[in-house]
């Protein structure tokens, strides 16, 4: 029972990190129908910028703000400069471009920051709370609470943005009906840029949370997360921010049970099995609106 509780809580924590990453993928998928394989290395880049701020004497919180802002700028720039020219062409072109970006950004990070992994100090303690005499829940620490809270707040903020603001409505219109939106006077190009900027900022947050969780950063430290974040996003239907978070949490729980009751080495396989099963049983994901689009 104690092991189950511990695994469950741990699953929620790692699940919320997958969720943050999935959120970033979903934001880009919604606006441009592209799976952004460069998300991981973009987040690695912003996390290294944050590390530089901390090295220069800045606090974690200043570094976080700088990481988010540089994410915004990087996302907007990448959309305008690299993605815009291939938009409207075959979808595979854009996907290949993001794969190229993935390699290129990772290379640039390694060139600038070096290939060595570096320690990363999380903002809060990672010592688990002692729930009663002699029983410490390792996975329930101040830092894990911060991680989960940050992701939930981000999801709620994004949901509110999409549902209650004019910009959010314009973004949704651009995502679901580009041509109609243009005819109605929506500046679709700007909305796509904004979508990428927001996505990269959420990705930057994911990078900071993961760095705190694993306590190190390196040019490739996000690589394993790409797979998990992608599975989480597909699980949630690729279209909905809430779906991304639920997908992330479900995946986190499932993988943590696999880790605890079976074996660590099965994680990659387990996530692929989940991906295949979702695609077979419910190809639209749990929260998909594709049925709506086909109608």
């Amino acid at each position: 029972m104690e092991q189950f509780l511990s695994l469950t809580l741990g699953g929620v924590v790692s699940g919320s990190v997958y969720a943050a990453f999935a959120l970033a993928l979903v934001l880009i998928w919604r606006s441009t129908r592209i799976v952004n394989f460069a998300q991981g290395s973009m987040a690695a880049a912003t996390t290294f910028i944050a590390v530089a701020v901390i090295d220069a004497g800045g606090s974690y919180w200043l570094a976080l703000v700088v990481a988010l802002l540089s994410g915004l700028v990087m996302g907007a720039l990448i959309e305008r400069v690299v993605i815009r020219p291939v938009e409207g062409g075959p979808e595979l072109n854009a996907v290949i471009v993001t794969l190229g970006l993935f390699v290129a950004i990772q290379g640039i990070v390694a060139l600038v920051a070096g290939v060595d992994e570096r320690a990363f100090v999380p903002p809060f303690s990672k010592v688990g709370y002692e729930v009663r005499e002699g029983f410490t829940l390792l996975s329930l620490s101040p830092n894990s609470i911060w991680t989960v809270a940050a992701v939930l707040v981000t999801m709620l903020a994004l949901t509110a943005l999409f549902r209650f603001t004019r910009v959010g409505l314009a973004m949704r219109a651009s995502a679901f009906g580009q041509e109609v939106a243009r005819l109605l006077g929506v500046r679709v190009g700007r909305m796509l840029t904004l979508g990428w900027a927001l996505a990269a900022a959420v990705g930057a947050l994911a990078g900071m949370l993961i760095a705190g969780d694993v306590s190190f950063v390196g040019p490739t430290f996000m690589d394993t997360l790409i797979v998990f974040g992608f599975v989480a996003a597909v699980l949630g239907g690729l279209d909905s921010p809430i779906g991304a978070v639920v997908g992330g949490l479900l995946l986190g729980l499932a993988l943590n049970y696999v880790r605890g009751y079976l074996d660590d080495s099965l994680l990659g396989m387990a996530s692929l099995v989940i991906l295949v099963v979702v695609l077979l049983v419910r190809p639209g994901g749990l929260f998909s609106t594709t049925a709506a689009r086909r109608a």
Partner: protein
Amino acid sequence: MAEPHGSTASGQGAPAGAGTGGGTATASALLEVQGLTTSYGPVRALDGVSLRAEAGRITAVLGANGAGKTTLLRTISGLVRPTSGQVLLDGQDITRAPVEAMVHKGMAHVPEGRGVIAELTVDENLRVGSLFRGKVGREEFDRVYDLFPRIAERRENPAHTLSGGERQMLVIGRALLARPRVLLLDEPSLGLAPRIVAQIFGLVRQLVDSENLSVLLVEQNARSALSVADTGVVLNLGRVVVTDDARTLAADEDLRHAYLGF
């Protein structure tokens, strides 16, 4: 090609038909298209098309599938760029203006296939139509709902749950929220029951008369379109075959058989 009688306008700037309601051919047109040519690769979808649409009048563009009707509207609103020719709105050249700017200039385009945004609710669809105007009073939305009570009942439902007729009402209502002076309607009758078509055409006529709107109506359903339009323009293979008063066109049996299919 044999040209049935009526003023031909395949060349440059031929005056439009005289019209029923005493409209004069010399009155300056709200929307004027001059020698528009649009190509998809080697295929000329539009070949020197000229026409004019006046305020308070419905101009029907008719012709078979592939005659270039949809391309004409798409070129006017900037979704497709012409290889030559001009589009004038109020005498101002808008041929190269960005698509997003058209609603600002007073032109709304309702695309073929009832361009609802399926994932958004009815109300959200309407709101998107008024986004570019900034804050828009609730009473303007209520007016659209008064016009189309059937969609008012479903305002919180996703647009993909609407029937074909309701979708057409939604997109026309949405276009009206842009407060256009020129409305481009692409095949509003497509796939609708005749009763609904009559209802929608009747409503368009009413709006044209009460708001002094200018409507450019593209239709394959020539019989219905001519019954409501003032002027008809017949397209064939990208060229204007004839431009004339709608009643004259409807009465011309040879023309009907040759190009309009009724």
